């Protein structure tokens, strides 16, 4: 499988990365290089093989549903580019 310019632009949109025409053109070649490299996986017979979900066999850890931490709104917004009264600010989404 390989990608064309339109696919690269669609994927960039899905990934929320703005790309220029030049960058998109360059990425077509680069991504096809990588996709060509991973293509060799199609040689492997994977009939009846289970897809790996956890590299170390383990049961999911559980904990009781209780508050163990909190009251840190100021810490949480401390690194945000734009805040107001412990809220994150973003451009207007709804008119």
């Amino acid at each position, binding site marked *: *499988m390989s*990608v064309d310019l339109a*696919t*690269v632009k669609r*994927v*960039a*949109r*899905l*990934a*929320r*990365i*703005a*790309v220029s025409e030049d960058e998109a053109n360059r*990425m077509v070649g*680069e*991504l096809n*290089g*990588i*996709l060509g*490299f*991973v*293509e*060799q*996986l*199609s040689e*492997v017979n*994977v009939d009846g*093989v*289970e*897809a*790996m*979900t*956890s*590299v*170390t066999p*383990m049961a*999911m*850890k559980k*904990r009781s549903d209780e508050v163990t931490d909190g009251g*840190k709104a100021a*810490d*949480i*917004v*401390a*690194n*945000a*580019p*734009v805040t107001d009264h412990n809220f*994150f600010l*973003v*451009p*207007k*989404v709804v008119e």
Partner: protein
Amino acid sequence: MSELTSLTIAEARQKLRAKEITATELTEAYISAIDAANGQLNAYIKVTPDLARLMAKNSDARIAAGKAGDLEGIPLGIKDLFATVGVHTQACSHILDGFEPRYESTVTQNLWDDGAVMLGKLNMDEFAMGSSNETSYYGAVINPWRSAGSNQQLVPGGSSGGSAAAVAAHLCAGATATDTGGSIRQPAAFTGTVGIKPTYGRCSRWGTVAFASSLDQAGPIARDVRDAAILLKSMASVDAKDTTSVDLPVPDYEAAIGQSLKGMKIGIPNEYRVDGMPDEIEAIWRQGITWLKEAGAEIVDISLPHTKYALPAYYIVAPAEASSNLARYDGVRYGLRVDGKDIVDMYEKTRAAGFGKEVKRRIMIGTYVLSAGYYDAYYIRAQKVRTLIKRDFELAFDAGVDAILTPATPSSAFGVADENLAADPVKMYLNDIFTVTVNMAGLPGIAVPAGLDQKGLPLGLQLIGKPFDEETLFKTAHIIEQAAGRFTPAKWW
């Protein structure tokens, strides 16, 4: 002062306890060494001298009070991937511009709880994506090693290039690092240092900036095998904050050093002989086999038939997980924001400006292989191949093999800004051909220096162990270290 920075962790520990030196003297020696060298090596992207002096002073007080921890007063460098309270933590990316976390990673907290001193944050490939440390927003790290008679700048490997260079140049006593496809072992091999990636689940991932969550593991880079064992014992823990942290007590790894190899079976996988591999790599591998045989181990040929598929499977699984993990960098909660005409425009412009080329490339690949219609063909198939890779190892271990010996890398360190590598991303990816299998199978792997090539550059061997059997790796790597000796670059900086 240079005498103090030449001490290993084990040696410094002994002198600190005997009160022959103080943590403050040791820390000052490292701060001076960093001041003198960092302009040329670029190993540290943030030095924290005031914090280091304060931590050293507290260590001296604890030593005086007879309350010294296992790493009391030992100055360490920390890869920029680990969250450190109030200190630069950006995974060497522009998108985390100005990020200073309000929390501490479990791994670094474990080190501070044992008395270690932080010298600063170390350079790395952006988001740990790279094999040369050249994708860092803060520029390349220069390997303290040079080819004999040459001034050419060489890379220290990556992604933990700052960690490896700082340890090799004696700009810290030891360093934290992380390994997703070889990012501890490849730079260790390129700099003549020892690096271990423990079993997946041994070190908590909490507070470590995520790249590919099913593959990422923290581990140390150190000057020798014993120091690596001392550091891993402190870094590893059982952590309720990481659901993949495994509930097993942390052994005293140092106690394994010096044990005999008699009765051990070492597997030699035929599939690790690859086309175009330099004769010197093959020779050092044979040398390693001889050393282990002489130490009493039995050498057996084994087959790991799916080896060649590990790297292509990795380049589906790792970018897929990265594209998901890196979705959080949107200009809202932390780091860089580039304003746009609406929220989507802001996201797209922020991510375009904040991520470097290699990171964008991997997010794009990951987004593509996870997109509708391609998920089964790429991602599910890669995860099935991953099952087969792991099974290869399980069959070898079931047949009685205790550890596997391979080369660590297919070459020694290469030049900065290598045009051949820059032109083709896949060529750079091939650096991890011997190390990536270990991440795909979740196993522990250690890189230990084994000799120098004709250019006078270090070459490493890799030992791969059973899950949670890091002790066997330390014991076996120590035998190689004793036979090969230790390697230090000639100082030019």
